[in-house]
Structure formats: structure tokens, C-alpha cells
């Protein structure tokens, strides 16, 4: 088979299908990424090793420096292909280190390409503490004036403690296929029973956690197609509108969350939220592409203006 461009495969477009490194290459300026503590350093999880499980030379997350539209940024990308992007001691410490580097170097921003089931249960306690340290380092970087932007469009979504980390960011972009929450469908079904949430009901899972509901609710700031270029544009747009970590800004967010609870607190299903929000033709919304969806729900959306 003959490939265009002298043997290079055609450029990959899907964000979801790309690996963690490929996502970074597609989002940052071409050739600008330099990895920190990369696989050649062989820093792996001692806890997985002691359980006799296989390790990864990057412990499931790629961190480093690059450029976005010419501006210096730091970026991290979780690899869902290794233990579902879950956070262990080393994985978490790489994210903490990157956020501390941001506080020291004051780049134009930090991009977090989130793809994670949350705490890595094989090193449960260390994972939980690591997530806590990520939250502190992230909020500390923001308080120092460095915007932190989250992108969610990978196969594992963003769950558990990483779902909280996502909403500590200045802004979030999601694809329809991205999912965001704290207790994932399997966890709720296992804990509370299939009557509470049927994890096998794909439509229910997508409308509860998926990008469209999160955008309509105002949990995600942007909804984009499953496309590397679209995520790149979204990252640049969100970096340009940081959310200050001050009393006025948090008081506005508080009002917004209080209003959501007052308006939709009686809803047990996302479909009821869409109906109450007076989204036009709620039954058609799952079928629309990101552009059409954005236009259609604009009057009903409960995000920041």
C-alpha cells in the first residue's frame, strides 16, 4: 500500500483513539514537546512490582514542556492503556512535580489531558494521598496565577479523585465521548445495586456522565468534536480565559452551584434535567454533533457566561 507524504501514515484525527503521547503531539505545536522524567529513566511503581504485576516505564503518565500557539506551556497526558490511567505513587508525584514546576516557572499555562479511572487500587492509600497532593499543587499553581486547563476525551473518562481534580481547574473541555464524574457506573452498581444505576445501560451511562450533559450543566466549559485539532483549539481558548481564585469568583461559582441544586435537585436522571432546562427537543440532543449541539442548547445552558 502506498501512503501519502513519502510513506507517513495519514495524520490521526481522533483524540479518543490516540495514545497519551500522540495526544500531546497533536495538541502542542509540532515538535515542541520535551518529556520530563521519560521512560528512559525507568522510574516505575515499586508497589505493582511487589504484587508481581507488570509496570510501565512512565507509570501511565507523560509529563513535560512544550508550546501552544508559540506560548510556553507545561502538559501532562494520562495513558489509559496502562491500568486505566489510574493514579499511583509515581504517577501522582509526576503530576505534582509538573504543577510545582508551573508555580516556579510561570508558563502561560498547564494542560492536563485527563484519562483516568481515579486512584490505582493496587496502591490504594498512596494513590489517595497522591490525588490530594495533586489537588493542593494544582490550586497552588492557580493561586500563583498560572491557569490550569483540563481536557477530557479519552476512553477511560475522568473518575474518582481525578473527577475532583478536573473541577479544580480553571476550565474544562470535553468531547461528547468524554465522561466525567466521581463515582463511576461500575462503582455505583457494585455498591448500591443495579436498581441505583445499571452500568450495562450504555445510554444511561452516557447521558449521566457524557460531555453533552456536563456541558449543558456548566461542568464543562467547552464541548468539542473527538478531534485532536478541536482539542488543541479548545485548550488555547481556555488558557486565554482563566478563572481567578478569589472571593468574588468563588462566590459566583457558589451561586451557580446553588442554583443548579435548586433547579435540578429533584432530578434523578439527566433526561429530566434537559427537559427542565427547556433544552429544545431534548430527545434529539444525543444525535447532534458538537457544533449543532452547542447552538441548540445555548439558551438552556447553565455555564459561566
Amino acid at each position: 500500500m502506498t501512503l501519502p507524504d513519502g510513506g507517513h501514515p495519514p495524520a490521526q484525527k481522533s483524540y479518543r483513539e490516540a495514545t497519551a503521547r500522540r495526544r500531546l503531539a497533536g495538541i502542542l505545536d509540532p515538535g515542541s514537546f520535551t518529556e520530563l522524567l521519560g521512560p528512559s529513566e525507568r522510574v516505575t511503581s515499586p508497589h505493582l512490582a511487589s504484587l508481581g504485576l507488570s509496570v510501565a516505564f512512565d507509570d501511565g503518565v507523560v509529563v513535560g514542556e512544550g508550546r501552544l500557539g508559540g506560548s510556553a506551556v507545561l502538559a501532562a497526558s494520562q495513558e489509559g492503556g496502562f491500568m486505566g490511567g489510574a493514579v499511583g505513587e509515581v504517577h501522582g508525584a509526576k503530576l505534582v512535580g509538573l504543577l510545582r514546576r508551573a508555580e516556579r516557572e510561570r508558563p502561560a499555562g498547564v494542560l492536563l489531558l485527563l484519562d483516568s479511572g481515579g486512584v490505582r487500587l493496587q496502591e490504594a492509600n498512596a494513590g489517595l494521598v497522591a490525588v490530594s497532593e495533586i489537588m493542593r499543587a494544582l490550586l497552588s499553581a492557580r493561586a500563583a496565577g498560572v491557569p490550569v486547563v483540563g481536557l477530557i476525551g479519552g476512553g477511560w473518562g475522568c473518575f474518582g479523585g481525578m473527577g475532583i481534580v478536573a473541577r479544580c481547574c480553571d476550565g474544562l473541555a470535553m468531547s461528547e465521548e468524554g465522561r466525567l464524574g466521581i463515582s463511576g457506573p461500575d462503582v455505583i452498581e457494585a455498591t448500591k445495586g443495579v436498581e441505583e444505576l445499571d452500568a450495562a445501560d450504555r445510554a444511561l451511562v452516557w447521558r449521566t456522565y457524557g460531555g453533552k450533559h456536563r456541558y449543558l450543566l456548566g461542568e464543562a466549559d467547552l464541548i468539542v468534536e473527538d478531534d485532536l485539532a478541536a482539542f488543541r483549539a479548545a485548550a488555547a481558548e481556555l488558557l486565554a480565559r482563566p478563572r481567578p481564585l478569589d472571593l468574588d469568583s468563588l462566590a459566583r461559582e457558589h451561586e451557580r452551584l446553588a442554583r443548579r441544586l435548586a433547579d435540578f435537585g429533584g432530578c434523578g436522571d439527566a433526561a429530566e434535567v434537559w427537559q427542565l432546562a427547556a433544552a429544545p427537543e431534548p430527545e434529539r440532543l444525543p444525535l447532534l454533533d458538537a457544533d449543532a449541539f452547542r447552538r441548540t442548547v445555548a439558551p438552556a445552558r447553565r455555564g459561566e457566561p
Partner: protein
Amino acid sequence: MTPALGALLGALFPAGHAVREEDGIVRGAARTAAGDVAVLGSAGGAEVGVEAALALAGEVLRVVREHPGRPIVVLVDTRGQRMTRRDEVLGLNGYLGHLAACVELARRRGHRLVAVVSGDAVSGGVLPLGFMADAIHAVEGAHPWVMSLPAMARVTKLPLERLEELSRSSAVLAPGLDGFVRLGALEPAWEPPLSERLAAALSRPVGPDRRAELGLERGGRLLAAAVARRVSGEDADEP
């Protein structure tokens, strides 16, 4: 208010307090030898859902507005985030992220944050509030955990006996205070009188997050501090 919470408040604040408990959420103020403090948190193992997260965030913002700089004592006894479909539909993770941001704001505005873990301390219940504190202390009965060993055996498909054996040497597996102390996440349980321990904690200078360094000193996390330092570039600053 449960007798256990009443007893804890009495031991922490013998000089008096006006702390209320409602649906597992604790709010109020108290007197200590180190001055007046705000008190907030969770009790009785309460799971933190959207209402509780919003109420706690509102309380943090109220303290910031009405009592600038007043230290905040965070009481922790929570079995984690509430796990319901409704909480997920409403975006519980967003409410918890907001709570964490409010706590960070309080820190930036000079409020000292001291957490006291008296019971369960689990996942989404402890991350946005208790684990955001400058210092995280424990009293008898403190029991931080992520997952029981039998549940971990199911997830990891490893024999329970193997996990039990490993957890004797590894701090990352076994539920309970000892492991978390070795990880640097909590301090060992206070001996009475608790009011004196609290006053001392409130008087100690506040610094950056040193949990990973403590984890190294205590032998529970040998890599976290070094990895974070190498990625942050701090190592390059040293002569």
C-alpha cells in the same frame, strides 16, 4: 448530636464551643488556648453528597467573609462521597472541586487549617476538606481507608492471604491509621489532653505541603518526594 461527637468537642474545646451538627455536617465556632476558631466538617461517618458539599463550601466562604484570618478546625469522620445516580447527574465532583477551591482561598487569605480525623476518612469525603488542611491530625478511632483488603483481592485478583501478608510490610495496602502515618498523610493519634494538642497544632508555623517528604522519612513512600522534585526542577536550583 451523637454522644461521640459531643465527647470529642468537649475534649477539644473545654473552654466552650457553639458547634451544631445537622445531617452529619458540623458547623460552628469554639474557644481554644490559641484563640477563637471556626469549626466545620463531617461527623458520624456521613457521606458527602451535593447538599453537604455546597453547605460546607458556603460555611468556608462565610468564615472568610465574616472572620478574616480566623483559624479553621476541620473535623473528619466520613465514609466518602455519596454514591447515588442523582449525585452524579448533578455533578457531585464539581461541588467537591468547588469546596476544595474555597478551602484553598481560605488558606491564601491567612486562615490556618488544622484537620482532626476522629473516625472514617475516605476518598471523596476527605479529599476536598480534611486532606486540604495544613496539618492533618488524628485522635483515637481515626480510620482512613480506600478499600478493604477483601475488596482489593477481588479487584486485583490476588489471593487475600497474599495481600494480608504484603500489607504487614507495605503502607499502601492496609486500611487504617498506621499505613497513612507512614505515607506521611496523617500524624500519629494524639494522646490526651486533646485541647493542649490542638492549641499546639494551631500555634505551629504553616508551611508548604510536605507529606511526600514525611512519607520518605517514615519509610512508607520512598519515591514520591524525589519524583516530584525531579519533575519540578527544584533539584536544579540546588548548588
